[in-house]
């Protein structure tokens, strides 16, 4: 009995166990020390939490694009981060011209809706185009092949937009109506954060209803289950795939506007980091799982805004905020190692993972 048990443990599991234990130990010690030192007030921690939720809801919107496509095609749409960038970057020009004419201040709601429309339209167009050019001809190819075209498409988009709009960082105009913040007790939340969280929640609700209750949504779920059987049932699989890409891209476009009003800066390379973060969020929640992507996004946002201070400050790491990306990536590695199915995901069989 004992011998058999020993045989089943192999080298990989031991190594993984050690790595995991070391990281968990580091996190626990770091958090304990930070809290014991008490350099941060409750108010600051709550600020981190609010920031994390706002940031996380942007990640969640982008993550939905990865998850929708993965659910249907079982492939990572590497170019999704560029779809996000395209919408935000294109809407910048509308934002600037509206700011110049004063429309952005006088009719903020309509102006922001126009920005959303432009960004979502551009992103959708780009997303559908990428699907048509880089993925559709390769539906039956080995898995490495579409992944490489996706990387290619991502670079083509980045540098096309760099060529079109220039390579400087462009500052989004500040909207005066969205300045200021609300305070309840220790909780302080800026108006921008309110807008971000509410519109992200609204869009996610909309998506959920669409996928659950419309005919297209039903067809999407059918295609995700089994493409061939869905085709036999009379579903136009290619059309559904295009719609899925369009849906994910539109959400990414909306996320682009939310990102732009939060950070007020756009650039052709802006998609890269949020893209990887959103992918992490999708994996965290269980890739292919829509509520999972939402949860994963919020969770990652919180982790990233609280994590560096909580884990590293107590260990006397200088400027821990510089390492927030390291924390997010390590998170991705840990999730893939110890729970590749994510928080809400079904258990992926080995061939899928």
């Amino acid at each position: 009995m004992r011998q058999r048990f020993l045989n089943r443990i192999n080298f990989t599991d031991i190594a993984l166990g050690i790595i995991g234990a070391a990281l968990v130990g580091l996190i626990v010690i770091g958090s304990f020390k930070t809290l014991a030192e008490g350099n941060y007030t409750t108010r600051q921690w709550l600020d981190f939490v609010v920031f994390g939720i706002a940031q996380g809801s942007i990640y969640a919107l982008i993550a939905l694009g990865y998850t929708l496509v993965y659910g249907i095609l079982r492939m990572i749409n590497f170019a999704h981060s560029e779809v996000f960038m395209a919408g935000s970057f294109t809407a910048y020009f509308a934002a600037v011209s509206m700011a110049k004419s004063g429309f952005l201040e006088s009719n903020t709601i309509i102006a922001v809706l126009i920005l959303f429309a432009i960004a979502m339209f551009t992103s959708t167009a780009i997303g559908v185009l990428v699907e048509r050019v880089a993925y559709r001809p390769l539906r039956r190819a080995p898995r490495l092949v579409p992944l490489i075209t996706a990387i290619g498409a991502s670079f083509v988009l980045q540098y096309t937009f760099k060529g079109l709009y220039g390579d400087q960082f462009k500052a989004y105009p500040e909207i005066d109506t969205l300045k200021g913040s609300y305070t309840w007790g220790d909780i302080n939340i800026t108006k921008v954060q309110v807008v971000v969280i509410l519109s992200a929640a609204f869009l996610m609700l909309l998506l959920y209803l669409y996928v659950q209750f419309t005919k297209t949504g039903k067809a999407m779920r059918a295609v995700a289950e089994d493409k061939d059987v869905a085709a036999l049932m009379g579903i136009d699989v290619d059309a559904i795939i295009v719609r899925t890409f369009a849906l994910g891209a539109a959400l990414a476009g909306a996320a682009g506007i939310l990102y732009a009003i939060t950070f007020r800066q756009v650039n052709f390379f802006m998609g890269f980091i949020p893209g990887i973060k959103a992918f992490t969020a999708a994996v965290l929640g269980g890739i292919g799982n829509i509520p999972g992507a939402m949860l994963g996004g919020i969770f990652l946002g919180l982790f990233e805004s609280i994590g560096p201070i909580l884990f590293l400050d107590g260990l006397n790491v200088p400027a821990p905020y510089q390492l927030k990306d390291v924390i997010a990536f390590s998170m991705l590695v840990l999730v893939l190692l110890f729970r590749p199915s994510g928080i809400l995901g079904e258990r992926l069989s080995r061939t899928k993972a």
Partner: protein
Amino acid sequence: MEQENTTSWWRKAIQSGVIGGIIAILAGLIGMIESFHARDIIAGRISMGETLLLLIVIGFAYSSSRNEQLPISTRVTSGVITGVVTSLMIVLFLMLGAAVNLRSIFVNASPALYKILTLEIANTSLAYIAIIVIGAVVSLAASLVHAATPFWKRIISSGFAIVLLLALLQDLIRISLTPFPFITSVLSWMFGRRGQEGLSILGAIVVFLIVAGAIYNDAKNGAARRARREALPEAAKRTRRWVNWGLLGLFLLIWPQIAGPVLSDVTNSVGLYILMGLGLNIVVGYAGLLDLGYVAFYALGAFTMGVLTTTGGEIFFDVRWTFWEALPFAVIVAVLAGIMLGIPVLKIRGDYLAIITLGFGEIIRIMFLSDFLKPYFGGSFGIVSIASPTIGGIVLDSPQTLYYVILAACFVALFVAHRLRDSRIGRAWKAIREDEDVAQAMGINLTATKLLAFATGAAFGGLSGAIFAAKLSTVYPHSFTLITSINVLALIIVGGMGSLPGVIVGGLLLAGLPELLREFSEYRLLIFGILLIVMMLNKPEGFVPEAVHKREFHEDENLSHAAGG
């Protein structure tokens, strides 16, 4: 099917014309045409920018006259329709540009671009007519050649391709001919006058005729000559091979003396990329593990070299070893990192592996950049004054001397990769690449085999990084971005995954050409992206495919061959 083809060919032709037009306009708006315009192909007559436009028209006309089921006249007409529509799109764009100020959004919609597109004709309506006429004539020629004269198609297109290549590479040719003033003076008529770029008209015509003649000759008599060569006795064939290798070796040895410092420096960068390509080729090409964080090993090699041969960052690791003492440690650190990355990702496959390795590469870069490790690695300032290698008291610090270190490293790596390919391990790697589960069922130890792939790949990356650090004598974290990983990946994919000659060809094409053509370097990643997509769609096995892959992609021919033999 037949019915559909005959009724809708013109619709397809218009469609591809519209796409061609959009691509041509996009090439203008992203600034490609304007910046390529700075380089002449035919001195003073045709620039690279205009050639790019012509190539777009030709390419789309060519592809729209592709359908071999249609009669020749229809194919040619459809090519011409495509060409005219493409030119019409450009004219429409010019009209739009004249009416609206596009520059407030598109930074590259400059007066210079309009000037190039209107062929520098001041009268606009005349210019529009000229554009359409040129589009029609060029597409007529292209589709005629394509549809009507299959025999001449290859001859003419290779003639033009060689002229283009020669014109692009003329800097390289001129520089490498400077030690031979005799040849330079003989060939002076070929190139434009001093200070001009590009070929002279006479030069272009002569080159075209020579190439076309050679290919014509090959098409007529090539088969007979190859048969004669096949019939030579084995011993003669072997001598021939040795002579060829000997000449190549001699050429490689004297190359820096011919090339001079600037070209040697370019060659050195190519060599370092080839070295990395050989390493990544083991991981991606042999073992099929897509690694997007390969730059991490390069960075580790470079920083290890930096720390060990200098006084480090603020904290003194006062070792100050020589290059040769530090080199093994740089490789060892990279190998250890390869194993450390390998262990956690052993169970992860495909897409996830790509993302995780990408994350790993970023983690390493951010760590080197952070204030946290600044005392050791200098943060964003990096490490300066890294030692150059010395041999017997001679300091190899110039590009021309460092070349030999890189050449030697490339040869070692090439030898190792070549010997590993068909060894027991190499076959195990390929088995894993094809099917992990079957490989495991055949008794291959997945853990050890995968780790060995990561470790070997990392060793080459570390070696390359260490030499890179010595070459620049400084290392900054900013030199080690994802873009390097993508460059290396593109290189092995273009060459052919798993193929060693492919790595060298890919390195020369993707690392060498952009260095030589400064206009390209700005659009390097755009072009790489397009290359990755186009290669995957049309030629997934690469330009110099590995034998196994080639067999897979041409299974039918082999079957008939096997049946015949």
